[in-house]
């Protein structure tokens, strides 16, 4: 079954926007998310397929509204909770 990430050929998306002199990251936290994910993968907390799957099962309306690295962070926290590393409440800081 295809999920929301499977957008190839889907109609209705707007023109492509290029950002001149685009930086690799638009904020420090984005770089931290990439580093965090790399650390969890190396440590075997989850694997790359699980990470990809966690992005792909973000509910469609949230998937389309989130920025690229917001999706990553959401997937990381989903997996940390599912793997029992911390509860969703702890991860949310509640």
């Amino acid at each position, binding site marked *: 079954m295809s999920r929301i990430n499977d957008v*190839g050929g889907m109609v209705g998306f707007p023109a492509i*926007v290029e950002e001149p002199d*685009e930086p690799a990251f638009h904020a420090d936290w984005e770089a931290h998310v990439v580093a965090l994910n790399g650390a969890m993968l190396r440590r075997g907390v989850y694997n790359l397929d699980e990470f990809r799957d966690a992005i792909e099962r973000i509910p469609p309306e949230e998937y389309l509204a989130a920025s690229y690295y917001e999706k990553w962070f959401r997937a990381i926290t989903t997996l940390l909770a599912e793997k029992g590393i911390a509860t969703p409440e702890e991860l949310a800081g509640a």
Partner: protein
Amino acid sequence: MSGEHASSPVAAQVRHVEALLEERGWLAPGEVDERIDAFAAGGSPAHGAAIVARAWTDPGYRERLLADGNAAIAELGYSMGGALQEQKLTVMANGPDEHHVVVCTLCSCYPIALLGPSPGWYKSEAYRSRVVRDPRGVLREFGVELPATTRITVWDASAESRYLVLPRRPDGTDGLGEEELAGLVTRKGLIGTALV
């Protein structure tokens, strides 16, 4: 990297999760900063450009590059093994009647080792959805107008398989050396959304 979003809610959440993981021993102190530095020092479009310039000046290399991308980039000291497992690299040559363009329709797979971090548009739903349905129209938006007779092939990258376009060497560059030629090659040219 700007700190302008440092106070955004996501920034605070990321800091919180990082601290929690450190506290529980899932992250070593300083590990995140080391990884950020390593990432910044990693891939660059200059690597892809150097590969192209060699292929333009050395027909034997060009042949090896098109036959086995991984082996050929290793000759120049590059590798697709930066992730946990090596990714297969396929290089496609543009020709007078043939143009190649790369996408990852499912997400953002991309040869970071050879191109550096991918641009936002490459990861956008707009590019991913549209380039497979209307490559000619999308290329036109990038300013690339191809004759109707040019065959366009769109390559959909995956976790295991990555793609690099070998652009056509521009006319009038016979006198240029490898380094100068590399300076002509752009990141978009290596993705296929520019001619060089």
